[in-house]
Structures are given as C-alpha cells and as structure tokens.
C-alpha cells in the first residue's frame, strides 16, 4: 500500500515539478552560454562587477522561487489529498494513518531532495565554464586555506547538510497543516500561524542552545571557515533531526487519533 500511495503522490505533483525544474535548468544553461561563457576575467574588475552582481541577484531569486514552489507543491499535495474533500477518499482507503504519513514523508522528501539536487546541478552548470575555472585556478590554494578544504568539497558538504535538513522542512510543513487541522473553523490560518510560530521558536531555541554551549564565540579567529561552518551545521543538523522526531510523533498522533474531516 505504501508504494502505491507514493506512486499516486508523485504522479500528482510530477507534471508541475518537472516543468518548473526543466525551465530552471534551461535558464541556467542559457545563462551559461549567453553570459557566463562570454565573461572575460582578464578584463578590469570594474566591468565585471555589474554582470556578476546581476547574475548573483537573479540566481538567488530564481533558486528561492524554485524552492518555494517545491515547498508549495508538497504543502498542497498534503493538504488537498488528506484534508480537503479528496480526504474523503484518502481516509476511507484501507490504509492506516501511519502509512499515509510515511507515504507523504517519502514522496515529499523525494521532491525536496530532487529539488536541491537540481538546484545544485544548475549552480554547477553556471560556474564550471572553462573561463571561470581558469580564473579561479590562481586563487584556489588561497581559498582552500581560508575555507580549510577545497571549495568543491566544501560545496559538496553544504549540499549534503541541505539534503539532510530537507527532511525537517518537509516535516515542519506537515506538522503545521496537522496542527491547523485541530482548529476546524480556521484550518488554513492556523496552519500558517503554526508554521511561522514553530519556525520562530526553533530559531530562538537554536540561538539559545548555541549561546549556552558557547558556540557563538567567534573571538579566537584562528578557525577556518569550514571549522566555523561545521561547528554550526553539525549541532544544527542534530537539533533539526531531534525536532523531526518530535514533529513526527505529533503528526503521527494527530493522523491516527484526531482526524475530523468537516
């Protein structure tokens, strides 16, 4: 049953997901061919700043928009399939709440992870032109020393942490929708409120914990960027995973005991 649920979940979101991500890769490829490959890094720095800044801003915007769209896709599938009128069918299938939840976690996380992989691929596509790598070559040792490892390995590490972290963002969405479901009169509003309150509380909690553990102390200055990042990312990821377990428990309870489709 789990496999069938996942199949239908993925099928429902596939069209829009593929369309959006194909468009993203296409834009990246176009930017590489039309802009990046034509940049001359031997030119004076002033002439380079403008196009690079524009690319950076546009790229950031595009990537945020794509991530947002993927999150919305995951959100709508969960909400519509389980808590809108379609829930009348989903909840009368001979499938337990736990199976439903796992199907949604796996299908949602698959989309989230795929989204990040494609974004990473898009960035790689942008910056792997020969002119860029050639321009980077002379400063590479310097950068590697500042970071503590080669830039490519560092990028890969950040990517892996993002992919692990994706699970917590998917669960946060499900948790918020389930909490909203407990207030039948204002389900959507309460879900949105739950989302922002929970994210806010989590951030405060992370800060408080890190401050308590003395991790916000940058005074030493001898650490490389990588050390700094890892000392932040590792506890953050552990905290996120712990939070996932708590959210999973809450969603599991709601989906098994508190389903009230009105």
């Amino acid at each position, binding site marked *: *049953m789990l496999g*069938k649920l996942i199949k*239908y979940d993925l099928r*429902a979101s596939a069209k829009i997901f593929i369309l959006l991500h194909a468009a993203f890769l296409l834009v990246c490829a176009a930017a590489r061919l039309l802009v990046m490959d034509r940049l001359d890094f031997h030119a004076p720095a002033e002439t380079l700043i403008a196009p690079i800044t524009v690319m950076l801003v546009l790229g950031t915007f595009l990537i945020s928009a794509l991530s947002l769209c993927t999150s919305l896709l995951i959100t709508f599938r969960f909400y519509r399939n389980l808590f809108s*009128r*379609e*829930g*009348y*069918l989903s*909840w*009368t*299938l*001979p*499938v*337990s709440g736990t199976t439903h939840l796992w199907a949604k976690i796996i299908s949602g996380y698959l989309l989230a992870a795929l989204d990040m992989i494609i974004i990473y691929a898009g960035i790689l596509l942008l910056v792997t032109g020969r002119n860029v790598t050639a321009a980077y070559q002379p400063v590479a040792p310097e950068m590697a020393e500042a970071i503590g490892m080669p830039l490519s390995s560092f990028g890969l590490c950040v990517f892996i942490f993002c992919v692990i972290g994706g699970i917590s963002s998917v669960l946060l969405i499900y948790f918020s929708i389930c909490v909203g479901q407990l207030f*039948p009169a204002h389900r959507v509003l309460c879900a949105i409120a739950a989302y922002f309150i929970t994210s806010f509380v989590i951030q405060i909690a992370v800060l408080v914990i890190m401050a308590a553990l003395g991790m916000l102390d940058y005074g030493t200055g001898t650490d490389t960027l990588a050390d700094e990042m890892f000392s932040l990312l590792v506890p953050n990821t552990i905290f996120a995973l712990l939070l996932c377990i708590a959210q999973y428990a809450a969603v599991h309870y709601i989906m098994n*005991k*508190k*389903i*009230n*489709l*009105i």
Partner: protein
Amino acid sequence: MRPILECQRLTKKYGNFYALSDLTFSLDRGQIVGLLGPNGSGKTTLIKLAAGLLVPTDGHIMINGLAPCTDTKKIVSYLPDRNFLNEHMRVRELLSFYKDFYENFSTERACKMLDSLEIDRHMQLQSLSKGTKEKVQLALVMSRVADLYILDEPIGGVDPAARDYILRTILTNYDENASILISTHLISDIENVLDRVIFLKSGQLALNASVDEIRTQYGKSVDVLFREVFKC
C-alpha cells in the same frame, strides 16, 4: 451473526453543538436501510463516523464488531455527499486507482456500468457535468463487493431517468449478505427499495421501523409519515 453496524450511546459534538447525542441502534445484515431526517439532523455526521472520517466524542460505533479501522474500511464502500475525487484524473485512471487499493473492486462491473451510462473512460473528471461526476462516483462505489455500502445522498443531483438507473444498479449489485445505508430526502423515490428506515431528529433516534410496519401501523407511506413527524 454480529450486526453489521452498531451504535452505542454514540455522541458527537462540534464545539458546543451536539450533532449526535446518545444514539443507540444496530443494523442487521442483508437489509437496505434509509437514513432519513431534515437538514442538520445528524445524518452525515453518523455516516462520517461509520466511515472513520470523524472520531466520536463519546460512545462507540462499530462495524462488524470493530471500531472504524483499516479492516472495516476494506468492507465498507462509502459514497460521500460531495465530489471526493481528484478532478484532474481521468475516469480510467480512477478505475485503476480503485483496483489498486480495494481488493474487492470489480473493474468489469464498473466498466459495464460506465458503458450503460455512456460515460467516456478517457475523459478527465473536471470536464464532466455535475450529474455525470456523481454517476462516476456511484459506479465506482457500487462496483466494490462490500459488506456495507454507505451512500450519502446518492440520487440528489441526477435527473429522474438516471435516478431510476441508479436504484436499479443498487438493487442489481446488492446481494443477500450485504447491507446498504442510504441517506436521502427524496423519500418517495426510494421508499419501495427500503427494508426499514431510521428517522433522525436533532441528533437523536426518532423512529427505527420497517417500511411495511409503518404502512400497517400508520396506514400511510414513509414519505407522508416523514412530513408529519418533521412538520415545521
């Protein structure tokens, strides 16, 4: 044999409003039962409790001796009172969806019904008319070989000719061990098809009797009796 549906002091509250209060009755197998009552009397609430879409505030509801769970959902075929299918799916995709999840779904039976209703299986649900959507839904629900069919307003939105076809469909696909619970307010249309009726009034049982008992005792049809009991 256990009753197919059993309610014991079943109560459901929405906030401070009692949608059902202290409802106790049971349904034997092999019967077609009409669940009748004015709007807001708790019909849909009772049906949703039986389908496992709501959790009782108090008391119990049991299907074949079990509280609603995965096992009861296997033997209950439920038609909600609203469009509950993904509008982007095609009719044939819905057929394979039902086949995938319900072991007791008969694709052959569904195809036969869809054909006699002249519904094109390649159409997307959203491009069908309101009445046709309802027919597709009912065809899917009646194509399961279930122990209990729960139909919430199955004939509300379709024309009289289709209504006759649907009632015939219900009679054709019904076998002696199955039970059907139908909620409707088009009583006169289905009266002859029913074994017994349950009247709900403000979330409480007002009457639970067989159609012929009512006719013998009151000398009037269920439809007429209903209008008298619930006169505004």
